[in-house]
């Protein structure tokens, strides 16, 4: 069953089109990374999925209309929208009380168990916690909620590398069980590469790439080309070319691995590099067209 299904999802703020009639589908049990430059429409897409903004087009989340049935939907959906949205005045014990009071699927013991592994005291106020601890607290709340969809919008923004690593480790080990779905946007793409099962690039309100990670690995290859073979490599129509330390690195889409092996070292590109290849090209083309 599809967890999220969007057809012709469209959202404009005044004359600015944030989402340009996009289609996408997320199956249950997947971890989808939505990658895009600033202002590409990632947050707008997530807000539509969470029923925070009205939209045009068709959108079903867990079989519900998120705008019209947001209250019901929020029993099955959790989100960490940006960092530090926990109210600063609240105490850790109070936030546990409150979520336990209003959320039918919250397991308080689980949250307290998770918190006991951190240095967060129950009587501390959020404003006295460090940024990393606030995110840990929010994660403890979210992981104790038996939800079917978890949406993370830049969950690790501003955290140091240890907290970021810990965050994704907890998510994978203690939360993800292959029946839940996770949607995540981030600029720290490298840390996500081994976590994601699916990938979506958004640029200027449009989906420019949408594939599973298996497809991604099968389709895209990067070759560090031997200097004498650059010309023959270029003949295979790479989608992107860059120079690193005087060597040419070419990115190919759907070119047989065997042929590329003759040209140089072949490896799977990082998501970040592919992003630059796909979205950077588009930006270049647009600039060229504008000229």
């Amino acid at each position, binding site marked *: 069953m599809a967890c999220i299904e969007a057809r012709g999802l469209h959202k404009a703020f005044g004359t600015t089109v944030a989402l340009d009639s996009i289609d996408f589908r997320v199956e249950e049990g997947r971890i989808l990374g939505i990658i895009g430059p600033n202002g590409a429409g990632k947050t707008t897409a997530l807000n539509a999925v969470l029923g925070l903004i009205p939209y045009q087009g068709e959108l079903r989340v867990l079989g519900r209309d998120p705008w019209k049935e947001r209250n019901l939907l*929020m*029993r099955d959906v959790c989100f960490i929208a940006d960092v530090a*949205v*926990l*109210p600063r005045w609240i105490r850790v014990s109070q936030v546990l*009380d*409150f*979520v336990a009071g*209003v959320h039918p699927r919250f397991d308080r013991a689980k949250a307290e168990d998770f918190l006991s592994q951190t240095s967060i005291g129950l009587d501390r106020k959020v404003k006295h916690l460090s940024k990393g601890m606030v995110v840990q607290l929010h994660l403890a709340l979210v992981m104790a909620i038996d939800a079917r969809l978890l949406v993370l919008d830049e969950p690790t923004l501003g955290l140091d590398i240890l907290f970021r690593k810990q965050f994704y480790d907890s998510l994978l080990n203690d939360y993800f069980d292959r029946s839940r779905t996770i949607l995540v946007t981030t600029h720290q793409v490298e840390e996500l590469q081994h976590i994601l099962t699916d990938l979506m690039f958004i640029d200027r309100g449009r989906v420019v790439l949408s594939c599973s990670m298996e497809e991604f690995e099968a389709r895209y290859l990067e070759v560090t080309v031997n200097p004498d073979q650059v010309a023959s490599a270029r003949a295979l129509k790479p989608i992107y070319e860059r120079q690193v330390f005087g060597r040419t690195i070419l990115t190919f889409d759907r070119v047989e691995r065997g042929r590329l092996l003759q040209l140089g070292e072949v490896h799977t590109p990082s998501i970040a590099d592919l992003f630059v290849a796909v979205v950077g090209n588009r930006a270049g083309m647009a600039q060229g067209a504008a000229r």
Partner: protein
Amino acid sequence: MNTQSNPASEPFSESRSFAIAVVNAARPVYWSIRRELWENRSIYIAPVAAAVLFLCGSLISIVRLRLRMEDPWKSPHGLMDQYELAPALIMGTALIVGVFYCLDALYGERRDRSILFWKSLPVSDVAAVLSKLAVPIAILPLISFVITVATEFTILVLSSVVFAGSGVNIAGLWAQSSFFRLPAIWLYHLVTVHGLWYAPIYAWLLMVSAWAPRAPFLWAFLPPFVVWGAEKIAFNTSYFLGILQYRLLGPGAGMAGNDHSEDFATTLIPHHFLSTPGLWTGLALATAFLFITVRLRRSRGPI
């Protein structure tokens, strides 16, 4: 479990599931109100502080009365004054707290972005707005009632202690205070005026709080001022000001007529109050404001 096989138990299970539905609907409101009290401790601290301050003054005054050997009830600055002042001070404090609470209630959560956290939980916008409305029209009046009763009781105890053995009849002191009659009037006043009559004012403040891009205080108080000025210039009339005065002073202001000595709370007999059209237009207006407030909270994100 087997309701289908046993039709006799259906009405029971229906009422049971209805009860469960009511409890489930009330839970988020209950917790949201508790949440408001966690966040805004001024809701109870301010009236308590006012009462404590008043009691300090009251004690000094009682001791001075004793030293001058005056009759505490007959003296011009005696217990009668304190008796009338204490509720006014405590309820007035609650009123001011309520105004500032409302202005910040839906603005503050957008400013500190915590609205995103509240919206990530299964609490509807209706439940959120109603629990915020409950603070000025139910919680604050209730708190000020309890504090007022406690204050008056303390004044009586203090004066009993101070005047013990001075020849003043202590039992008469208690009898004259009508300690057991006044609370009913205060409660009635709080329910009718603070709860019902002022509801449109609080609803207006909540609506502004949900809408204002910044400075909710200005948005709440400037527009009425501008309307008054515009009306004055355009038609040289003051109908709008009249409406505002009527709303602020209460229906009792008109009913009491010229007899200023009469406390307007006591003129508010239920039958009179309920048949005042102003009450119902006010409540209709409050409902409209709240409806818009809920819509605004739904569509507005953090600032």
